């Protein structure tokens, strides 16, 4: 099983790599073929479900970085299973749907490939049992969702939405990384399953803040909610997937996963409940403001996420059970409704709720799917949404602060119900209207998903016990930290408070729908300032600041760059030596042969000529003479390889410098004003003195001979080479060399780009 579990997360990536080819080969069928991957995952997970439902778990690990105690560890418990099944199950139909939705699109293969990668990242995220792996998959979901949201990259709005999503969720990702490292420091291991509650630890507030930042940005909690509606720029199947089982649910998953570690404190409950409740009401109100179907649904997702965060924050047995129930119910109805909205858009050419109408006859199956989903969203019995709603009301006793939360929850659910009514009724009932396209029923691939999601939501009505024991309770137990025994049953009891809370929800929801247009008009008046615009202001400020900093440091005056670089080199070499007392004593005059003195004199003559030369070309040649003298010194003191290379480098330097000079059309002579001469000369002298001092200091110290002894001793027996320098380069230190030649090539490309750029400007 262990390999199979890893495959759930990794296979989609392999499939993604193959997808463009498959698409080219199979064309219209590629959506169906892509869907086989999540389908297989779903079947696999379904088979292990009984074992997991009994409280067991499945583990699997691949080696990753064994030296650092890192493995790609996967663990399937109740919580992971519920999320993974939702990701795979909904993903299957989303891919089938995408195949048709994007039929004929130039980049359909690429799209399916992105979708599969996204799916793999999500599966990896919910299956990871290692903090680092969790972080990596978390970031992968951000990156792949960036690709999906900005899929229609020719439109500036889509690009902005993609960047916005990446920036906001990316901040959360960094917070998660920091939280993961802190947790490892506290617990001593990377394993998520082994984490214990750290509620009393001094670092607890910091870890809590970081995890909440990660979860809130990802799950679009107020005040980070603004990226989610903009993400609607993605093609509809992406929205359906992002909003139902994936992406935004990653934050909910994170909170549920870490609630045994971080939960149960006043800070946890207070923060989650307050932010959740605000987000719930905010999302509900904003949904009523919209007229675009997708925008309405997007805002309700924000509300539902708020609801989930709130329930996890309350954290009692009932509340966590309700959260898991609601997660499944929401995933099903939200995916279905988005797909319905996409089908409407695809077949009629508009998503505007004030334009659509009277489609019940021309798009009957779509209408049925919409009804099934909306009933669950409103929470009418006996559909799944009803169970979720009842559980969450039951989770809060009506006294103290919990009564306030209860009221907020009823109001929020009512607003969601109002939106559900609008989405179900407006496009389909009423008189037929003129539409951009002549409406007709959507193709089977686009109906399959919404209808099946709707039907699945009805299953608990017939088998509440089975559903509860296999999906909800294992997940809730994992999130709660202890086994939960609780019986899910369908009950309608007019004497209980729950019944009247439900009634209140429906009545307020009905009222909201009845006065929808009036409410929208009122809400639209408040449209002055938004966090979305605030984001633009911040981004603009960032760009302005970085431009200012760049202008300050990157002024474009080459001689100043050189002065700064070399001055810093001198400072870096001499200051630490002076401060730390490592200045070497002046060495005595060495005892050299006369020809060795001759070579030294040659080098000095070369340098002297460079300084006094009136002609640039002459100076370049003189520099070469000095370099060759150095090469001779290497030769005389037993470094033939170094000498050899130095010779070639000097020759090529002279050639290339001469070519550059003739290219730049410089004056033949080099005359500079005295102050420049003094400055450059001063810097050159300082550098020379500093480096000489540094070298003497190095030579005066003790060299650790172990490495050179090892290389000398092992060059022949281990690497079959007598030239130790070469053996080090190509064998002992091969990885370094590989890096170096990559740098050589990259530098070459950069130089060529500069040459060609200059040429283009020239002509």
């Amino acid at each position: 099983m262990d390999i199979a579990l890893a495959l759930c997360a990794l296979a989609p990536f392999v499939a993604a790599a193959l997808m463009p080819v498959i698409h080219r080969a199979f064309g219209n069928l590629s959506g169906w073929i892509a869907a086989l991957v999540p389908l297989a995952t779903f079947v696999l997970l379904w088979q292990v479900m009984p074992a997991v439902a009994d409280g067991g778990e499945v583990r699997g690990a691949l080696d990753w970085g064994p030296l650092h105690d890192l493995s790609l560890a996967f663990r399937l418990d109740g919580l992971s299973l519920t999320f993974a099944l939702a990701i795979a199950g909904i993903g299957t139909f989303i891919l089938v749907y995408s195949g048709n939705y994007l039929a004929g699109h130039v980049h359909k293969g690429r799209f399916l490939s992105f979708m599969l990668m996204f799916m793999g990242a999500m599966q990896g995220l919910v299956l990871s049992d290692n903090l680092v792996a969790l972080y990596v998959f978390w970031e992968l979901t951000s990156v792949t969702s960036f690709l999906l949201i900005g899929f229609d990259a020719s439109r500036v709005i889509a690009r902005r939405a993609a960047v916005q999503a990446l920036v906001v969720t990316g901040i959360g990702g960094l917070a998660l990384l920091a939280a993961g490292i802190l947790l490892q420091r506290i617990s001593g291991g990377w394993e998520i399953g082994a984490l214990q509650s750290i509620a009393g630890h001094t670092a607890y507030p910091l870890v809590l803040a970081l995890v909440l930042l990660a979860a809130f940005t990802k799950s679009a909690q107020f005040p980070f909610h603004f990226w989610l509606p903009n993400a609607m720029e993605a093609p509809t199947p992406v929205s359906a997937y992002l909003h139902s089982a994936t992406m935004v649910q990653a934050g909910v998953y994170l909170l549920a996963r870490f609630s045994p570690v971080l939960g149960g404190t006043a800070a946890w409950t207070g923060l989650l409940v307050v932010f959740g409740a605000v987000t719930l009401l905010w999302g509900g109100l904003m949904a009523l403001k919209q007229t675009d179907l997708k925008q309405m649904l997007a805002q309700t997702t924000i509300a539902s996420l708020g609801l989930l965060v709130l329930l996890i924050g309350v954290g009692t047995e009932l509340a966590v059970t309700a959260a898991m129930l609601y997660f499944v119910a929401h995933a099903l109805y939200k995916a279905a409704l988005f797909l319905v909205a996409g089908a409407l858009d695809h077949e009629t050419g508009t998503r505007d709720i004030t334009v659509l109408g009277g489609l019940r006859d021309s798009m009957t199956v779509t209408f049925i799917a919409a009804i099934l989903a909306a009933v669950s969203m409103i929470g009418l019995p006996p559909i799944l949404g009803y169970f979720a709603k009842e559980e969450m009301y039951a989770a809060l006793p009506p006294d103290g602060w919990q009564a306030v939360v209860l009221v907020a929850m009823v109001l929020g659910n009512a607003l969601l119900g109002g939106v559900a009514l609008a989405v179900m009724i407006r496009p389909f009932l009423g008189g037929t209207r003129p539409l951009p396209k002549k409406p007709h029923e959507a193709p089977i691939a686009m109906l399959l998903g919404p209808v099946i999601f709707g039907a699945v939501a009805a299953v608990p009505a017939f088998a509440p016990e089975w559903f509860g024991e296999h999906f909800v309770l294992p997940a809730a137990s994992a999130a709660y930290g202890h086994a939960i025994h609780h019986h899910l049953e369908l009950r309608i009891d007019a004497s209980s408070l729950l019944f009247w809370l439900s009634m209140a929800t429906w009545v307020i929801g009905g009222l909201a729908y009845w006065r929808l247009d009036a409410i929208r008009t009122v809400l639209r008046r408040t449209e002055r300032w938004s966090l979305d615009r605030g984001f633009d202001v911040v981004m603009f400020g960032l760009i302005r600041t970085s431009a200012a900093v760049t202008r300050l440091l990157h002024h474009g005056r080459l001689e100043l760059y050189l002065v700064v670089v070399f001055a810093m080199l001198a400072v870096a070499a001499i200051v630490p030596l002076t401060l730390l007392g490592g200045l070497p004593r002046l060495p005595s005059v060495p005892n050299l042969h006369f020809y060795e003195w001759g070579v030294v004199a040659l080098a000095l003559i070369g340098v002297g000529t460079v300084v006094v030369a009136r002609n640039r070309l002459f100076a370049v040649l003189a520099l070469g003479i000095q370099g060759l003298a150095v090469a001779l010194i290497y030769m005389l003191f037993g470094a033939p390889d170094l000498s050899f290379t130095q010779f070639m480098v000097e020759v090529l330097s002279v050639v290339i410098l001469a070519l550059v000079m003739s290219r730049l059309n410089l004056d033949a002579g080099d005359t500079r004003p005295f102050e420049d001469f003094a400055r450059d000369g001063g810097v050159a002298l300082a550098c020379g003195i500093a480096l000489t001092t540094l070298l003497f200091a190095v030579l005066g110290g003790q060299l650790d001979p172990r490495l050179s002894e090892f290389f000398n001793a092992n060059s022949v027996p281990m690497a079959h080479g007598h030239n130790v320098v070469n053996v080090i380069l190509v064998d002992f230190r091969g990885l370094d060399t590989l890096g170096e030649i990559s740098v050589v090539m990259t530098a070459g490309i950069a130089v060529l780009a500069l040459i060609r750029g200059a040429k283009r400007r020239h002509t």
Partner: protein
Amino acid sequence: MSTLIFRTIAPLLVAVMLVFSVFITLRGHNEPGGGFIGGLIAASAIAILGMATGATATRKSLRADPLSFAGFGVALAAFAGLLSLPFELPFLTGLWTQVFGADVSTPMIFDIGVYLTVFGTISAVALGLEDEEAD
């Protein structure tokens, strides 16, 4: 630069230098030399040819863009490192064998990769600058 004598001698010189560069590269494992220095010699040969016959003609005689040599060199060096993986040895572990009595090894292939990278990059830069000279 393009005197008659230079233009006549250059191709001969270049041929000798190129052969010498290969010699230097291959003997590098036991005596002074190696891919880096060999690549530099070959690149100087190309620079000389560029001065004598012009950058365009030199490019043509190279058959491929100099940078492709460099890219191929990096790929070849990486490939030489990958050869050890099927034997369950870490990346870049040296492997040795004999082909028709001659010692052949992955470090040698690696060194040829280094040779091609240095040769390609420096040639590309030199020819790029010589191009400019022409216009």
